[in-house]
Structure formats: C-alpha cells, structure tokens
C-alpha cells in the first residue's frame, strides 16, 4: 500500500472515531462544540508520556483514553447544569480554556508543540476505528442506547419513567471523552507531532457538522458523514481547476492570489450543511431509512405501523 493511501486511511480512521466521540453526547440531546478540546487532552496526554518517559504505544493510548474520560466525566457535571445555547457556549469555552492552558504550559511545549517518538503504522488507527464502530453499534442496540434515544427525544418524560437522565448524559459524555482521547492519541502517534494550533475551534465545528449531516438517529450517520467529508477532497482533485477559474472571474481578481485547495472542501461542507438543514434536517441517514433497508422478516408490516401510530 502506498504512503498516500496509508495517510488517507489514518485520517479517515481518526475522523470516524472523533465523529463517534461527538455523536454520543449529541445522541442524548447535547450539542458538544468542544470536540477539539477533548481531542487535545488525549493527544497531549499520549505525546507527553511518549516523549518524557518513552512509554510504548500500548501504555500511552489507554492512558490518554482514561485521562480524557476522567476529564470529561468531571467537566460533565458543571457543563450539564447548562442547557441549550449555554451548553454549546460552555463546551466551546472549555475547548478554548484547554487550548490556552496547553499554550501556556512549558512542560507541554507551549506554542512549539511536542514531538512524539513512538510511531504507529496505519493499521492501528484503522483497526481501532473498526472496533469503535462495532462498539457503538452494539451500544446503540443495548438498553443504554435505548435510554439515550429516549433522553434525546424527551428528557422530561424519560425522567418521569424513572430513568436517571443526568446519569445517562454524564455517561455519554465520559464515553465520548474516552473516544476523543483515543482519536487524539492516535493522531499524536500517527503524525509524530502535536501542536495546539491544530486543535482549534474549526476542528470542533467540522466534527459536529460531520455528525449532524450524517444523521444522529442511528450509528450509521456519523460513519457516513465522516467518510464522505474525508474522501471529498480526493474527489475534488479533478473538479477543482474549473471551479477556480470561475470564482476568480466572479470576484474580480486581478493578479494571482494563492488559496489553499482545502478551502473548497469547506465551502462544499458549508453549502451541504445549509441545504441539509433546509430540506432534511434530521441528517442523511435516518432510523426509518435503516429499518426499511434491513433484510429481515417483520411481524407487523411497516405501512400499518405508520398508519395507526
């Protein structure tokens, strides 16, 4: 396998894990706009142990996961006291505080970043992503997954039914945190270098959009979203030159300006976001769609269920 595809697979695997990390809180009805902060905790946790104590990958990755899960667990209690817009702002602020704290820490390299001696091949992230995917599918099929859905759909009724809604939400945050830590640690070991500028507000926004565009009702959604938006730039390599000429004309540019090709990917992500929210706000893949595609005998035909519901 060429280095090019190995690189793409690594990024894809990390994006999938990160999408699931954000999916869990969102599946309980909590928008988390602080993904970059949680990922940074995991990445720096692994990077620090690897560079300072020379520990192997098999120790640093579990440690990073545990550390991030602990941080998410502790921050979840004050965070989840806030609701709606305040929660979005609080998670956003948390990510900024983490970024600022790391930027000021001489132990963690500050603005210079940390280099990570222990390296992992692309197989490790890919296998991790597969395991995480299977785990999330399993989790959504258990009672815990059912209760998460219930808390998402109506927290008051769920509470009345005797479910500990706060407990479910904290658990979703903590598991999501562990996954974000895993994504961060894999990032650190795959690219052999971490710097805090890579874990900025844009990253949090992109990951949340992957999840929301893919759909939050089933575990298929984040997977579809992450795969689509990671592979999009590869598809764009062909379509870009034509778009570029047209844009330059429309904006009245005289003289050459260098623009990163990556920008196009984000323009398309933005356009798709706006269109999706207008026409299909529940995301690309919905529960009904998955149920219709499932090849198994049903005791009650779907049509009747819809008609009498």
């Amino acid at each position: 396998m060429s280095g090019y595809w190995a690189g793409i697979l690594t990024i894809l695997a990390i994006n999938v894990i990160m999408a699931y990390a954000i999916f869990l809180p969102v599946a309980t009805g909590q928008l988390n706009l602080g993904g970059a902060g949680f990922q940074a905790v995991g990445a720096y946790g692994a990077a620090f142990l690897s560079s300072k104590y020379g520990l192997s990958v098999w120790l640093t990755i579990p440690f990073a996961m545990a550390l991030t899960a602990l941080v998410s667990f502790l921050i979840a209690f004050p965070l989840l006291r806030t609701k709606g817009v305040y929660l979005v702002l609080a998670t956003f602020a948390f990510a900024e505080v983490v970024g600022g704290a790391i930027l000021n820490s001489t132990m963690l390299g500050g603005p210079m970043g940390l280099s990570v001696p222990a390296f992992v091949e692309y197989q490790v992230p890919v296998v991790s992503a597969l395991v995480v995917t299977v785990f999330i599918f399993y989790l959504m099929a258990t009672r815990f997954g059912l209760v998460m859905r219930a808390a998402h759909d109506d927290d008051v009724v769920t509470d009345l039914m005797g479910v500990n809604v706060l407990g479910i939400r904290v658990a979703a945050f903590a598991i999501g945190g562990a996954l974000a830590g895993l994504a961060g640690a894999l990032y650190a070991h795959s690219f052999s270098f971490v710097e805090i500028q890579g874990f900025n507000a844009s990253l949090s926004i992109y990951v949340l959009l992957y999840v929301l565009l893919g759909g939050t009702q089933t575990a298929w959604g984040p997977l579809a979203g992450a795969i689509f938006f990671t592979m999009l730039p590869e598809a764009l390599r062909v379509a870009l030159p034509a778009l570029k000429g047209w844009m330059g004309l429309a904006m009245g540019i005289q003289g050459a300006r260098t623009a990163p090709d990556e920008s196009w990917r984000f323009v398309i992500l933005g356009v798709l976001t706006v269109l999706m929210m207008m026409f299909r706000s529940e995301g690309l893949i919905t529960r009904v769609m998955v149920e219709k595609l499932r090849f198994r005998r049903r005791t009650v035909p779907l049509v009747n269920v819809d008609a009498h519901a």
Partner: protein
Amino acid sequence: MMLFLQQVSNGIMLGSVYVTVAVAFTLTIGVLNFLNFTIPTLFMLAGMLAWALSAWGVPFVHAGPMPWQAALLFAIGVTVVASLFVERFTFRFLKTRYGDATEHAIPLVSSLGFLLIIENLIRIGYGTDTQRFPGPQADLSVNIGGIFLRVPQLISLVIVLGIVAGLNWVLRHSRIGRGLRAIAENPDAANILGVEANKLVPIVFMLTGLLCGLAGVLFAINYGEVSPQMGDDIGSKAIAGMVLGGLGSIWGAVIGGLAIGLTEMLTIHFFGADTVQVAVWGLLLLTLFLRPQGLFGHHSIGKGKL
C-alpha cells in the same frame, strides 16, 4: 501608574470593537433565540471587502482602486445584504417539532455552514494573508494628561455608544421595537396578535449586518490591517462579552464587551500576552457555571431553544 492607565484606555478602545459585535450577537439571541455564528464572518467580510475594494475596485463595473471612504460604505452595504441572504436560508427554516431536542439547533447549524462558506470563499478569492488597509493615519493621537488616545478609536467609541443608545431607544419606544419584543416574548402569541414575523425578522438581520459591517470597517481603520482570520478572535471575545453581560441584554453586551477588552489588556499588562486566552475563557466558563444568566440577562433566554 501612567502605563497602567494607558492600558486601561487601550482596553476600553479594544472593548468598543467587541461591544459592537457583542450587541449584534445579543440582538439575535434576545429576539430570535438564535445564536448566529455568521456574525464573526460578517465582521471579517466587511473588513476584507473594504480592503479589496480600495485595492481593486468593483468587479466588472469600476476597475481600479476606489477611495477608501467609498470602499467602507460599499463594504457595509454588502455586509447588510449578506446578512439578509443568511436570514433567507437559516432562520426561515426553523421548524420546531415536538419530540426532538436537537431540532431547535437547525438555524445554529446552518449558520455554522454559512460561516464556513463565507470565510473560505474569502480565502479563495483574496488569499489568506494579512493585508494593510490604506485608510487614514491610524496613529493620529491626542495626549490627555500623559495618556495617548488615538482619534479614530475615540470617534469609533462614540459612534458605537451612539448606535447602541439608538438601538435601545428603537427597541423600547418604536412600533418595530414593540413587535420585536413581542416576538422575543412569545412568537406564537405575537403571530396571533398580528405581528408579522416574516417582515420583522429581516430587520433584526439588517441591524446585525449593519453592526458587523460597522465593526469590521472600524477595525480596519483603527488597526490598519485586515485578514480572513480576523473574525475568529473578535467573534469569540464578543461571545464571551455577551455571555458575561447576559444573553439578550443590550447594555449587558456593552458592559461585557468593555469588561472583556479591559481583562485582555490588563492580563497582558500583568501576566503577559500568552495568558489572555485562559483569562478570558476562564472568566466565561466561570460565568456559565456560577451565573449562567450573566450580569444583566434574563434567566429565561436561551434555555430551551438554540
């Protein structure tokens, strides 16, 4: 002591930019319960357009450099139009259905989409570099008792406070303001009583565009440089100021924005530039945990909806 007072005055001047953007944020949250993430980009759009127009002119119509005064007005106009365009594709599609907590997030998520679109189109069109804005002399300053005050900044502060006072008056005493406050209180009841939301909501977005455009060009004049990244930092600090002052409260946003500007300058003065992020965002996080309604906010705003 003199240096300290100088930093305080710098903080207030910086705060005046935050105030303008924070008022735009608080207006959409207070009236529409909508956290509009396109605001930082509209601010950036105004600054970058002002620069691009004064450097290149209008495409197809007026090639060649434009005088900077005309460029500023044109940039504000385009920003207002862009804001109305955003309204057409985000807020119109707020369909609240019972039984889904994240349904309320639709306009917020679309506004994140517009943030990506506008910011990256600007990057593609005008590059990612910081550009010098060819405005008036930014370091034109007066000396009051040993403290240097830059005249353009002083004028900006007066303009900003004037606009906020005017806005406050409009919201309190005019027919439009009454309609907007009715929508803020209860959209359904307002609709039944004959308030036409589809006509009033674009006014909020027009005001948002106007405030962002103004803040963007004032920033370009005062600091003499613009870049596609300039909205990120200012937008975040303005959000911090708004939350500190209380969501939905205009004077709260003014006090909050000034407080964030002061905190930033004083943190630089006492602890160095690197700790600013921790100080500002720590302050915000503490506010959210201890007093989520902020200093002057009403506790009912922003809880249920996004």
